[in-house]
């Protein structure tokens, strides 16, 4: 609930700064929806995909630092495959380029999962390996160049096109969000994930295939990252192995946590993550809209994140409200000392 309030506040700030045009979608000549907020959503799609995958990983008490590198690999493979072909506009080619990219990223994810589940390596280290090597692999694929796909290739539609007036990246992100939500909430997968994250040993003794689930989760996360890379590359028509998705893992984790999922595993909230992503996306625009210079980007982000984090903390709210609620001089107990039998 708090993230939603913050998001609304940000939107209000933007509306005050730039007028209601900010939120009201406009219709472009070619019938596509445009406007500031739609653009934010469209641009946030890759981050959303990654953050969704990350949510699942975090639910199992893991973390995936390699998503940025996987993003770059997905983008690199797709673009390189396309530009290596004689006819960049062939639909079949684009289809196979996308398929190859997704298969490779899935394999990478499975690898991460195996390292964590079967070799018992701490997730942060296991994925650090690919975080370091992954960009190298992406650069290897592109030979250090930035492959540029012809604008006429159907591939670019993935990032720039629209379906029923709504930009395709938004469709993809919404679809994945719905699919994951259904998959985790309609089946028992969500509960099993939370169980593995909450208490792996108890889960094992209860007969849960915790290793299989762990591998699956990392696989899905990498797949999401690969897909995000495809959208990013399609949007630009090019793949930048070195900078594509750089530090996106931090933003993704940030979005997950803003959305209310704890890094300690257990309960996860896909919708919360989505809101977190939109907050981050809106924030970047807000800085420009209220006329702050580039130097402010980091500082403003820090402030907003801090406010969200504090508002989400019941202890903070109690502390702030205390002087209002109760006036008696008797010192109330410091709230943080309450032990919730953790």
């Amino acid at each position, binding site marked *: 609930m708090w993230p939603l309030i913050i998001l609304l506040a940000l939107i209000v700030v933007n509306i005050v700064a730039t007028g209601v045009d900010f939120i009201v979608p406009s219709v472009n*000549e070619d019938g596509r929806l445009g406007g500031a907020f739609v653009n934010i959503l469209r641009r946030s799609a890759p981050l959303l995909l990654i953050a969704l995958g990350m949510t699942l990983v975090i639910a199992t008490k893991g973390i995936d630092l390699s998503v940025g590198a996987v993003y770059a690999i997905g983008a690199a493979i797709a673009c390189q495959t396309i530009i290596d072909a004689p006819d960049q506009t062939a639909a079949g080619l684009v289809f196979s380029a996308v398929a190859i990219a997704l298969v490779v990223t899935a394999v990478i994810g499975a690898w991460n999962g195996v390292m964590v589940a079967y070799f018992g390596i701490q997730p942060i280290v296991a994925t650090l390996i690919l975080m370091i090597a992954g960009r190298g692999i992406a650069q290897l694929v592109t030979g250090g160049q930035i492959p540029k796909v012809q604008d006429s290739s159907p591939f670019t539609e993935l990032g720039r096109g629209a379906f029923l007036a709504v930009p395709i990246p938004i469709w993809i992100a919404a679809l994945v969000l719905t699919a994951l939500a259904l998959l985790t909430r309609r089946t028992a997968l969500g509960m099993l994930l939370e169980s593995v994250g909450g208490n792996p040993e108890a889960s094992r003794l209860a007969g849960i295939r915790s290793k299989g689930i762990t591998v699956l989760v990392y696989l899905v996360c990498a797949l999401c990252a690969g897909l995000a890379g495809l959208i990013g590359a399609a949007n630009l028509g090019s793949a930048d192995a070195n900078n594509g998705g750089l530090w996106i893992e931090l933003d993704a984790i940030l979005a997950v946590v803003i959305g209310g999922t704890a890094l300690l595993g257990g309960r996860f909230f896909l919708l919360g993550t989505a809101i977190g992503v939109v907050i981050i996306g809106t924030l970047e625009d807000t800085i420009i809209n209220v006329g702050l*210079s580039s130097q402010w980007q980091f500082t403003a982000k820090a402030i907003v994140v801090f406010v969200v984090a504090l508002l989400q903390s019941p202890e903070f709210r109690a502390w702030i409200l205390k002087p209002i609620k109760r006036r008696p001089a008797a010192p109330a107990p410091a709230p943080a000392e309450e032990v919730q039998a953790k």
Partner: protein
Amino acid sequence: GGGDDSGDGGGSGDGLVVGFAQVGAESAWRTANSESVQAAAEADDRIAELKFVDAQQDQEKQIEAVRNFITQQVDVIVLAPVVETGWTDVLQEAADAGIPVVLADRGVEAADEDLYVTRLGSDFAEEGRKAGAWAVETFAEDPDGTTRILELQGTTGSAPANDRKAGFFEVLDAEGLPYELVDSQSGNFTAEEGKAVMETFITTHGLDGIDLLYAHNDEMGLGAIQAIEEAGYQPGTDIQIIIVDGSKAGFQAGVDGKLNYIVECNPVFGEQLMDVVVQVANGEEVEKFTPVEEGVFDASQFEAELPNRKF
């Protein structure tokens, strides 16, 4: 025991061992630069081996690389410094070890002048000035009086971003061009962010009435061009665009009429660098600064120049 110094210079008889501490691989420009240097060293008989280290844009890593070259006792160290300051000690160590240092691309602060032999590279402020000069010329008689400018800066705090900005506005101010800097944000030298920032510029300020977009490199410029097209405008016509660098893709965009002016920043100076390195190793006199040959190109030259582009 460390008495075994047989490596001294890696067999000075058959050529030089050169250590090259490169900034990173952060852009196509940089990759082209690395490849040019590596290829030139490979092809050059006078060079026995090129030790190449990529510091991933981190000064500490680069200093570490230089120290490693010193320990390896290479003949010449080539350094492409990430930033200008902070090199005194490590350059002094190289001097103490009797290894000459050549700077490539960016420079170091003036006070360290005695610690390197020569610098070969581009002058970012000059590139900014070149861009500024064209802007002044083009918009001298702007019908509405003031030239309204959007700027896409490079990575906040990096030398090219700072100098290209400074050089550009230096000329504008000096020439007295009436202008308004409508907005200026960092696009981190990447197409991705260049596009995103441009989209926001468009929604915030609109494009009508904006005269000029100045992008500190190709990638950002190309990203911005897409954003402009997607918003339904004609880049190069509805808004004039200057980019710095001049990659193939940049020139292609120029040929397609999507941008108006390219200030070259040439990464392909490997052969020039090898000549300098050999001269330095032989103790010959060299100039303190050797500029890389760079040009400027306007719409009339794009077509002709495109085939000559190497990156």
